[in-house]
């Protein structure tokens, strides 16, 4: 199957974040960046589909500055066949990113286009679904299970207090939630092979950018916690505080 996976490069989620002096971004000094979590699930899902199908091609796409090449290489070291960078400065406008991806994917002849459910930094979940709309393809969002074969697919989505099972024709767009696949670690052989795989770079057709970051700030710190005591002896005090201080009982 011919599968495209759209990926993003984001800072390691375990980092302690600081706001940059300009307040319009985070301070990147000392931060480690990597292939975004949900995007890495999407890469893994694509690789497994093609491994099971015994063939096909997996192509990874990223819109962004040259630093995204590192994440494209990472995806290739996991097993993707080739990569395309759509070159642009970082953009906060998900519709503009979708426009650039749709312009490129339109003529790609893909059976399946995969995205992460949302990205770590934007936490928006906009780009995948918007790209699908622009391509006129059916789109399943936040799939926690996915099966594709012979021109159609089925998926499961978690709703609030329920789950939805769906069916869709290919070609289609799917955004991947946790549960579909855990990403593999690239092997040494994979890392070596990725260096020789093709990585094409061309300008992104973003169009108008209408969402910009005005400011970033850190949320207020929680006041330091307090330990009431040990074992069941601490329960009366906890119940008293829940009644009188927190007022939840």
């Amino acid at each position, binding site marked *: 199957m011919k599968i495209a996976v759209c990926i993003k490069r984001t800072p390691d989620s375990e980092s302690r974040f600081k706001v940059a002096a300009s307040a319009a971004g985070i301070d990147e000094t000392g931060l480690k960046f990597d292939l975004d*979590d949900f995007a890495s699930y999407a890469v893994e899902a694509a690789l497994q589909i093609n491994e099971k199908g015994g063939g096909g091609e997996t192509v990874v796409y990223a819109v962004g500055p040259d630093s995204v090449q590192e994440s494209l290489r990472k995806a290739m070291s996991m097993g993707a066949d080739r990569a395309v960078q759509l070159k642009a400065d970082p953009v906060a406008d998900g519709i503009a990113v979708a426009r650039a991806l749709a312009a490129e994917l339109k003529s790609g002849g893909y059976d399946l286009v995969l995205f992460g459910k949302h990205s770590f930094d934007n936490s928006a979940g906009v780009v995948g679904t918007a790209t699908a709309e622009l391509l006129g393809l*059916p*789109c399943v969002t936040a799939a926690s299970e996915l099966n594709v074969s012979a021109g159609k697919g089925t998926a499961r989505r*978690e709703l*609030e207090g329920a789950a939805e099972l769906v069916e*869709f024709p290919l070609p289609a767009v799917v955004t991947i939630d946790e549960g579909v696949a855990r990403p593999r670690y690239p092997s040494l052989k994979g890392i070596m092979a990725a260096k020789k795989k093709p990585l094409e770079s061309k300008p992104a057709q973003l169009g108008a950018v209408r969402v910009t970051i*005005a400011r970033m700030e850190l949320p207020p710190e929680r*006041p330091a*916690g307090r330990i009431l005591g040990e074992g069941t002896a601490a329960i009366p005090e906890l119940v008293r*505080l829940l009644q009188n201080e927190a007022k939840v009982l």
Partner: protein
Amino acid sequence: MANVLVVAETRNGELRKVAFEAVTAGRKLADASGGGEVHALLAGPAGIGGKAEQLARYGADVVIVVESADFAQFARESLAATAADRARAGRYRAVVLGFSSQGRDLGPRIAARLDAPIAADVTELAVTGDTITAKHPGYANKVIVTLTLSGAPVVLSVRPSAFTAAETPKAGRVEQGQATPASGPTVRVTEVKEGAKGRPDLGEASIIVSGGRGLKARENFKLIEELADAFGNAAVGATRAVTDDGWRPHADQIGQTGRQVSPQLYVAVGISGAIQHLAGMRTSKTIVAINKDKEAPIFKVADYGIVGDVLEVVPALTAAVKEARKGH
């Protein structure tokens, strides 16, 4: 003056809480942009029009009722097309919806169809002249990002519970609207599996009791269920360690890659407090932690901590909470 269109979420023929919150957010936005009207799109199966009055109570000046057998299920393509058509016809300043599993899906579809900018998971809104600014938590709730959106309309999906639904009764003049059918291939719902009955959703619950690997075995999760029952209408959550082991469904997972919640009370039982778990619950109003290791990172964010064995502390706490709530 600028009008706002709210896409009101329904499921199984009922309005959902996020629908009223979205109307409240839409009301604020309309008032802040010089006193426009709020129009609520109420789409669902035959009979959904009977719910129009509820939207009026929360501030809808006009309720556009679209009844179609297709909307008995989540007909995403048709719903998005219907909302986009209405948004175009009404020349709205903004389209507002909830950032629920349905709203996450619909928001970008509507924005793409309208070629409109979108801000997702919004917690605060402000209007200054021609621009709308929206705050939303990024980086797994670790950074608050303020976005500026230019142009009209803009699409805004609001984080559940961020805008408390407030009653501001309006006329709620009812108009009948028409569904726009999907124009291309569609995703078809084959089955909806309802989750455990009788518990509120994690996003809507005011109290959540959550369990981690410290519970040691799947069977011990019944202690969590019993404590949740003692609190009354509490929801049950879990860590990834627990959902990975299959003790609880993935949908119960709280954290960076699971649900993000902000209840009045979050009780963390046998949970270490890994950064990815904290990302999903650190904005809870009050946090209680029970853990046998007094160095566990969860105690750094817990307002009240008890150091002890869950198998011993939880049953006793359940009894004490029942006692305290006698008469409720």
